[in-house]
């Protein structure tokens, strides 16, 4: 075959494939109102949500929801809303709700949701905090996320710790960490706990000592409060005790979260602070891992078994400003809040139910061993959320930087947090000034 003939055949084949090749299944909307739903979930989590969408589409003949798995969802939703072409429903992270709400970029759900039974009271106490902002309801929650302590029961048994009695306070926790440490030839092979893994929540340590980062009433940063300082002094005690170079060297052995090299899944760490979703990673990469779940420890004297502490960190559904049929969007959102739908989704996601009530069969058949703990945290009056301000993303970066400096012992925690507070306050003041200017000088 000549070169010309070969190229001709290849070109003809390509054109034929393009014209006659396989096509994606065409959705049969049958004249129904089409709603676009952007969600961050892919893989197993996305698949079950798509099934829920399909069931909703089957359950009635007026609306047709299209599911779009979307990465970087907060940024993309922001651009789509600003561009005047938003999707009809978006699944954003709970910490973004205040930013969207204060810009009126999403619709309040009080009036839309009430006729369908959607109101803050249907949620667990902790979850109510993240669906409301400045007295209005802006979001719903379809799977409940909050943070707790995962611990490796086999490691506990190995060093003589009781796997049925995980540490409840920091002194107990630190003792356990010392016992769980394994060093070989001067290098750490296993640690009880490492504050930088996974490194997603640099700001929670003071909260477990009773500290807060932000006073919403006065719009003031409280990052350097004495209780927060205590929390970060506790963080700094780890590199001080085990050696900074050693703990940083050990950290380089941690793989990505969603991999078999995940430090907890691979047994490099005996304890980790994580959300309920970690159970899916364990199931996927190390099914035999014998783990337990408990509330993350608190400062001595603060333990209360009836009111565990933990950060609420969850997925929410919002309806963007500018959608053509908000009632239709709300109808789909309300469908996802049905107890059976919530429980089905939450089971596959390994998460707790965000609702105030969950069924016994849900708890009994749940794949996450720590489901009772996660639900207890979600219902606890001492669960907490990230500061409800539109500039949280910038404030979080300051806390990330502060943690980095505390961990690397660049200064005392009091001094580092003092600087973080000053900078966070500058961000808050700037945001307040921008809001004042935008509202024509009104406070």
């Amino acid at each position, binding site marked *: 075959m000549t070169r010309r003939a070969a190229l001709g055949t290849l070109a003809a084949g390509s054109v034929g494939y393009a014209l006659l090749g396989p096509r994606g299944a065409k959705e049969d909307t049958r004249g129904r109102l089409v709603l676009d739903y952007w969600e961050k979930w892919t893989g197993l989590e996305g698949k079950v949500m798509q099934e829920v969408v399909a069931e909703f589409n089957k359950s009635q003949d007026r609306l047709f929801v299209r599911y779009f798995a979307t990465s970087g969802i907060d940024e993309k939703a*922001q651009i789509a809303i*600003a561009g005047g072409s938003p999707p009809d429903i978006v699944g954003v992270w709970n910490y973004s709700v205040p930013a969207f709400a204060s810009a009126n970029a999403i619709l309040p759900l009080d009036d839309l949701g009430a006729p369908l039974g959607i109101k803050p009271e249907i949620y667990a106490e902790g979850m109510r905090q993240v669906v409301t902002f400045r007295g209005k309801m802006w979001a719903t929650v379809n799977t409940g996320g909050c943070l707790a302590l995962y611990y490796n029961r086999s490691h506990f048994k190995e060093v003589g710790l009781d796997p049925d009695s995980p540490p409840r306070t920091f002194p107990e926790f630190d003792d356990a960490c010392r016992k769980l440490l394994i060093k070989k030839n001067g290098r750490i092979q296993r640690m009880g706990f490492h504050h930088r893994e*996974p490194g997603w929540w640099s700001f929670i340590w003071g909260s477990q000592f009773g500290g807060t980062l932000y006073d919403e009433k006065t719009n003031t940063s409280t990052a350097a409060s004495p209780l927060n300082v205590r929390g970060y002094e506790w963080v700094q005690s780890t590199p001080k005790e085990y050696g900074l170079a050693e703990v940083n060297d050990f950290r380089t052995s941690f793989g990505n979260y969603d991999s078999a090299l995940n430090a907890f899944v691979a047994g490099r760490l005996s304890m980790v602070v994580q959300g309920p979703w970690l159970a899916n990673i364990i199931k996927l990469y190390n099914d035999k891992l014998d783990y337990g779940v408990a509330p993350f420890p608190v400062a001595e004297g603060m333990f209360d078994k009836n009111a565990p502490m933990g950060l609420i960190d969850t997925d929410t559904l919002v309806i963007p400003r500018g959608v053509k049929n908000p009632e239709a969007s709300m109808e789909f959102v309300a469908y996802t809040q049905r107890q059976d739908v919530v429980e089905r989704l939450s089971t596959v996601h390994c998460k707790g139910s965000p609702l105030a009530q969950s069924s016994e069969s849900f708890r009994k058949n749940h794949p996450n061993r720590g489901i009772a703990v996660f639900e207890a945290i979600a219902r606890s009056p001492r669960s907490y959320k990230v500061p409800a301000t539109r500039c949280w993303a910038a404030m979080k970066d300051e806390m990330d930087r502060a943690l980095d*400096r505390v961990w690397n012992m660049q200064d005392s925690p009091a001094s580092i947090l003092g600087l973080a507070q000053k900078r966070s306050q500058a961000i808050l003041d700037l945001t307040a000034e*921008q809001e004042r*200017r*935008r509202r024509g000088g009104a406070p």
Partner: protein
Amino acid sequence: MKFRMKDEFVGLTWVSPWIVGFLAFLLIPAGMSLYFSFTDYPLLESPVWVGLGNYKRLLSDEVFHKALVNTFIYAGAAIPLSVLLAVVLAALLNTKGLRWTRFFEAAIFMPTLAPLVASSMVWMWILNGRFGLLNQFLGLLHISGPNWLLREGWAMAALVIVALWGVGQAVILCVAALKEVPEQLYEAANLDGMGPVRQFINVTLPMISPVILFNTITMLIGAFQVFVVPYVLFQKDKGGPNKSGYFYTSYLYDNAFVYGQMGYASALAWVQLLIILLLTGLLFLASRRLVFYRGA
């Protein structure tokens, strides 16, 4: 006259896709960005005029200063080293009698074809303090490699190493320029008794200096816009240890899409453009003395 107008119309019709593209995707957005730079524009709400407010804010913004200094350090290290490496590799590839030249050229060029995110992921493991290939190699030489991505002093060095890996395009341009150097210049230099080093300095370098200038300018623009590699390498600790891997474009991106400060981000973008223009202008000024154009 009529014929000429018709010709012009036909010509404009042919170039109209470019004109439309230029207006829609470059000129109008650039103009809007200039306007936004004088406003407080949180993206989700309408812009509000603040005059020079955003530019004044730059003066007292510590994170901006840190990002700017990091970018200058990175550019100051990565550009000269990349230019030098490109010339050296090109000279080696241009060695007479060298076999497998095409293979080496392809091998050097190949990294520039790899998607940046994918190659950054690979580099993340190469630079891993405990298991990384680089430290394993240094270990063979009885050198204890540092924790590249977790130590403030070494994070920048790691980024420069990654930048050097992507030098292939500059090498290929230098090789092409080297092949264009007239043979008789070397013959004349030989007759004058010049050794290989003097020949390289007095003949080769001046003859390929326009390409070196081109490489330097494109690298300068690239260095001041560096984003993907540090974004991936320091994904766990945003900006790396003590923000030592946090760059100008990273801060610009964060302001635009994470902090919702599009007006401020626009001001950052215009200052970035001015810095690049200024430095490119300085390079052109310096090139008057240092760059030799054959036709001139």
